């Protein structure tokens, strides 16, 4: 009963005209950037973060969350029609989606992607609603050692899932934590690593760092390529509504994808990309005709698309319950909440229920909006694919510059952003993953506080992290992951997963 009352409150909040507008803007922008290859949801959330400074926190989160799950919807369009994933979570949709389009079945592929996403998105919101409050009550009992251990686990998972050398991923995490030390030490009120620059007194700004690493570095990586013209399947897209046969083939994949996506989305470090790959592998494994996968089967589109959307709902659980983001997009949302003076964690649900329930309500509304946006307007999104990148990239750069400037009205932040843009570009080029860096940067200060307080409480004993059950399990899992990445047999398995991920 309490659940329904809370949901009712959530709908009241999100149905106010201004929040409804921000929800619409969020899902619309999410769809647009999902459709456009070369701009990911991370970059767009970073790009639009400054536009939310002057609105209420709930409206800000509604819009930014809309961008994230909207991008998951839009990403399938380019995968199916162009064979280029709009964002990473749609990579696997290319395999069968594009083949379906080549066979003249682009309509059912797009249709099942949209319906599957809608069903999975809705199911994951129900899961979020049901699980968040009980889990936050458990999380209230967590102490500093548990928080530190869970943050270590999250960073270990993100590093483990990164491509290439595990040492490179871990180095990025170490660099991220180290960057968070710049500025005033809040415990001792002492400046650190600011090189005497007043502008670094408050530390490295989250916005310039994110925009540099994601917005600018992404543009630099794209513009250096000698791109070729994209081949868009523009032959009339008909029959967007899947047939009874299509539904029969897909419903199992959608259900399994939803459950898998939601479960993997909850894990720190998990997320839409991993769940879409796992869903595809599961569907292929249990199918009666695994040999047909890769030739254009509808289950190969329905499962991963459902999984990547369900993962977005699951990803909100660690953010709202523990204040620990499970992936980069969630780290950006955490940043947004912090900019508005809110500290995500178990107390957020008690002290600011409007934020949580307003976001949950908006996700129902947003999912319905996305279904309406994605199916009837598919022709418009296809036209959007024709916008040349040479026109698009100067605008992205301009928005990044304005975004960095507008936080403090300071041109120095633009220079910081440009610096991180170049650093991010070089790091990407040499095979370094940026996700562990960003996640570690966002968590760095919290990690330090939890680490120092744990040591103070335990009279300087490091055993405090291994004698409490939850922290011991989290630390053991983190250690297992990191050690397994070095064992040859596990290492080969990890490299195989990377190869399959493209």
């Amino acid at each position, binding site marked *: 009963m309490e659940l329904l009352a809370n949901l009712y409150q959530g709908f009241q909040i999100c149905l106010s005209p201004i929040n409804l507008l921000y929800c619409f803007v969020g899902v619309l922008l999410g769809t647009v950037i999902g459709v456009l290859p070369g701009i990911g949801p991370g970059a767009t959330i970073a790009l639009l973060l400054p*536009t939310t400074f002057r609105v209420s926190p709930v409206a800000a989160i509604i819009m930014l969350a809309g961008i994230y799950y909207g991008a998951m919807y839009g990403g399938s369009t380019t995968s199916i029609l162009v064979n280029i994933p709009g964002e990473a979570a749609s990579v696997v949709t290319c395999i069968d989606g594009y083949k379906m389009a080549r066979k003249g079945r682009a309509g059912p592929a797009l249709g099942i992607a949209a319906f599957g996403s809608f069903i999975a998105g809705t199911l994951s919101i129900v899961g979020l609603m049901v699980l968040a409050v009980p889990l936050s009550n458990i999380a209230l009992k967590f102490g500093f050692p548990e928080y530190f251990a869970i943050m270590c686990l999250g960073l270990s998972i993100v590093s483990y899932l990164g491509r290439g050398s595990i*040492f490179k991923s871990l180095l990025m995490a170490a660099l991220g934590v180290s960057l968070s030390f710049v500025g005033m030490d809040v415990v001792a009120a002492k400046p650190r690593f600011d090189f005497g620059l007043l502008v670094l007194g408050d530390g490295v700004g989250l916005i310039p760092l994110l925009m540099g690493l994601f917005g600018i570095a992404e543009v630099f990586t794209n*513009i250096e390529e000698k791109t070729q013209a994209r081949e868009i399947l523009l032959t009339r897209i008909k029959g967007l509504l899947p047939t009874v046969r299509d539904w029969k083939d897909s419903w199992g994949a959608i259900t399994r994808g939803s459950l898998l996506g939601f479960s993997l989305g909850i894990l720190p470090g998990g997320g839409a990309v991993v769940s879409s790959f796992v869903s595809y592998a599961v569907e292929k494994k249990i199918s009666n005709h695994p040999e047909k996968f890769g030739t254009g089967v509808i289950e190969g589109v329905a499962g991963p698309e459902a999984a990547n959307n369900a993962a977005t709902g699951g990803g909100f659980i660690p953010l709202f319950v523990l204040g620990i983001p499970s992936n980069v997009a969630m780290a950006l949302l955490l940043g947004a909440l912090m900019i508005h003076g809110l500290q995500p964690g178990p107390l957020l649900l008690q002290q600011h229920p409007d934020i949580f329930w307003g976001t949950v309500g908006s996700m129902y509304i947003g999912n319905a909006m996305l279904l309406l946006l994605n199916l009837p307007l598919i022709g418009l999104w296809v036209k959007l694919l024709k916008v040349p990148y040479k026109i698009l990239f100067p605008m992205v750069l301009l928005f990044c*510059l304005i975004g960095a400037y507008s936080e403090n009205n300071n041109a120095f932040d*633009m*220079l910081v952003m*440009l610096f991180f843009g170049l650093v991010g570009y070089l790091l990407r080029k*040499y095979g370094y993953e940026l996700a562990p860096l960003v996640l570690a940067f966002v968590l760095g200060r919290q990690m330090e506080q939890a680490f120092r307080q744990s040591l*103070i409480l335990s009279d300087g004993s490091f055993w405090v992290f291994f004698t409490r059950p939850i922290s011991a399990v989290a630390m053991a899992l983190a250690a297992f992951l990191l050690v397994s990445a070095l064992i040859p047999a596990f290492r080969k398995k990890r490299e195989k997963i990377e190869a399959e991920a493209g």
Partner: protein
Amino acid sequence: MARSDRIFSFIWIALGVFQCAESCSLGLGSFMEPGTGFMPFVMGLVMTALAIALFLESYFEMKNKPLLKVSLWSDVYWKRVVYIAVIMLAYAILLPKLGYLLDTFLMMVFLLKSGAPIKWPTAIVVGALTAGFSYVLFGIWLSVSFPRGVLTF
């Protein structure tokens, strides 16, 4: 990649050692009462250890596998990246002097011309429209206070 990994590992080692040294000067405190430099010192050590591991990994990789001489800088337009970075740097420096509208217009024109061929009139029109539109959106609607610069209206 193995060769560049070795070079990068030296950069990470230098960074880790620098961080440790700087942390010591901040004060490490004790295990019972960690000081300002304690956690940065630990992270500096971690970074140095990981960098050494990366060096060893790339060393054995180069020893076991024949080195493919494929440059990451050939077959890409890296000069375009440098050109665009310089334009952005100039934009950030000149913004307080030229003001938002003029500075943005100039940057957009140069950025548009830096990509695939676009005619000057198109670049000028798109540049002017973007500067105007973004000013209305951010400067007026979202109340971001941009410097006016030489255009004092």
